[in-house]
């Protein structure tokens, strides 16, 4: 579980996060949604330790990040898996080498054991024939799956995903969403996803945090989104005609 308490962050005169408090639960897909400029990415980067909050604390299962010494912070980071928006695969390494990277860096496993684990996670994300390919030789959807495999290969306690569906077709998007949700349940990890994609919200939104201008404007589940009368979230989620009709149909039963 990750608990965020009264998080504030400014860049110069611009206050991006204005006292955000929330809980990201273990074993659930926690989504951060909001318009561009609402502070989603800053919140995610604060959780990752890339940004240091001006005020407030972030607790990883009771460990307050700002109170950890540098070695403890690095130790905590080895418990984190991250799927970047652009996948961020190491382009000079093959798919298998990318996935093996965290194991080579942080474990003393021998080559055979690393290979076994890499084969297992690549099979888990349905990539069995791509071991020797370079990231530039595979599609965007496959790159995302490699990034997920790399993120989970070290059995992380926390999985962060920044716009995991961006640039993907709807079919592949759904596959990626479902894969992330399955992995979250299977390994009982705390997953936090930063997304704009309303399909993801409807598919896997078990705990949704809606940010508006740096403030947490709403929090709930995908089912609660249909029933809520919070104007901000309704305006944001149901901005397309398709979702308006879906909501109307849901409310009519």
């Amino acid at each position: 579980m990750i608990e965020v308490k009264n998080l504030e962050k400014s860049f110069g005169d611009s206050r991006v996060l204005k006292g955000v408090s929330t809980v990201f639960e273990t074993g659930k897909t926690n989504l951060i949604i909001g318009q561009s400029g609402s502070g989603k990415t800053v919140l995610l980067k604060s959780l990752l330790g890339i940004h240091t909050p001006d005020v407030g604390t972030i607790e990883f299962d009771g460990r307050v990040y700002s109170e950890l010494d540098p070695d403890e912070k690095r130790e905590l980071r080895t418990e984190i898996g991250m799927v970047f928006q652009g996948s961020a695969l190491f382009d000079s390494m093959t798919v298998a080498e990318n996935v093996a990277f965290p194991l080579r860096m942080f474990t003393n496993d021998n080559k055979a054991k690393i290979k076994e684990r890499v084969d297992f996670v690549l099979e888990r994300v349905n990539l069995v024939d791509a071991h020797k390919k370079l990231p530039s030789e595979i599609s965007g959807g496959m790159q995302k799956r490699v990034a997920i495999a790399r993120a989970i290969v070290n059995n992380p306690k926390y999985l962060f995903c920044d716009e995991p569906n961006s640039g993907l077709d709807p079919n592949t998007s759904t596959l990626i969403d479902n894969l992330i949700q399955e992995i979250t349940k299977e390994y009982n990890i705390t997953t936090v996803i930063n997304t704009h994609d309303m399909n993801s919200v409807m598919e896997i939104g078990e705990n949704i945090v809606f940010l508006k201008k740096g403030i947490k404007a709403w929090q709930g589940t995908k089912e609660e989104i249909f029933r809520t009368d919070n104007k901000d979230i309704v305006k944001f989620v149901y901005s397309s005609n398709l979702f308006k009709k879906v909501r109307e149909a849901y409310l009519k039963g």
Partner: protein
Amino acid sequence: MLIRYLSQIGRYFLMLKEIFNKQTKWPVMRQLIFKEIDDLIIDSLGIVCFISFFVGGVVAIQTALNLTNPLIPKYLIGFATRQSVILEFAPTFISVIMAGKMGSFITSSIGTMRVTEQIDALEVMGVNSLNYLVFPKIIALLLYPFVIGISMFLGIFGGWLAGVYGGFTTSTDFIDGAQMDFIPFHITYAFIKTLIFAMLLATIPSFHGYYMKGGALEVGKASTVSFVWTSVSIILFNYILTQLLLGS
């Protein structure tokens, strides 16, 4: 403006400190060092050999053409070629050329990793990205004096070939000149310079790549800026080291 430059210099020294913090595991680091030796040292040998050989030849011809007084002995062609190549051409000018060749490679490769969030990925995993990316380059460039040694040999050899087969001097005169008044400390001086330049070649382009912001266009701009600053630093340090080591 001055504050900005000072702040950049301060940031550069903080980066140097961070490079030596929290070392990457040795089996991983060993592979990285071999890769950097291949990319930075082995891949540079061709251009260094080519330039050294021909510039050595040109130095010999230019010296010969300027020795118009019949009282000046021909062995001075060998002497001047040796001194020019050992003291300045091989250590300094090859390093300026390498600031373009190696420097732009280092800046663009690290800059691309920054743009594509690969450096963020390393940091999020708990890897000291500066140690992972820059330390192997520094270790690989400890072999840079060997490159300069080859450059010295080929420069003088090129001068001998151009001098003898161009009809400017005899082989005996050239070799006599090349051996005349030889001061072994000049070699030490050249290699001390080379090691300092190697450190600059590894770290200044890395600094410009690591801290760059923006996209693909900015990677190109960072490579250009890195070349300018690496060259300026090499020339400045060349002056300071020459004053310190030979001036007193």
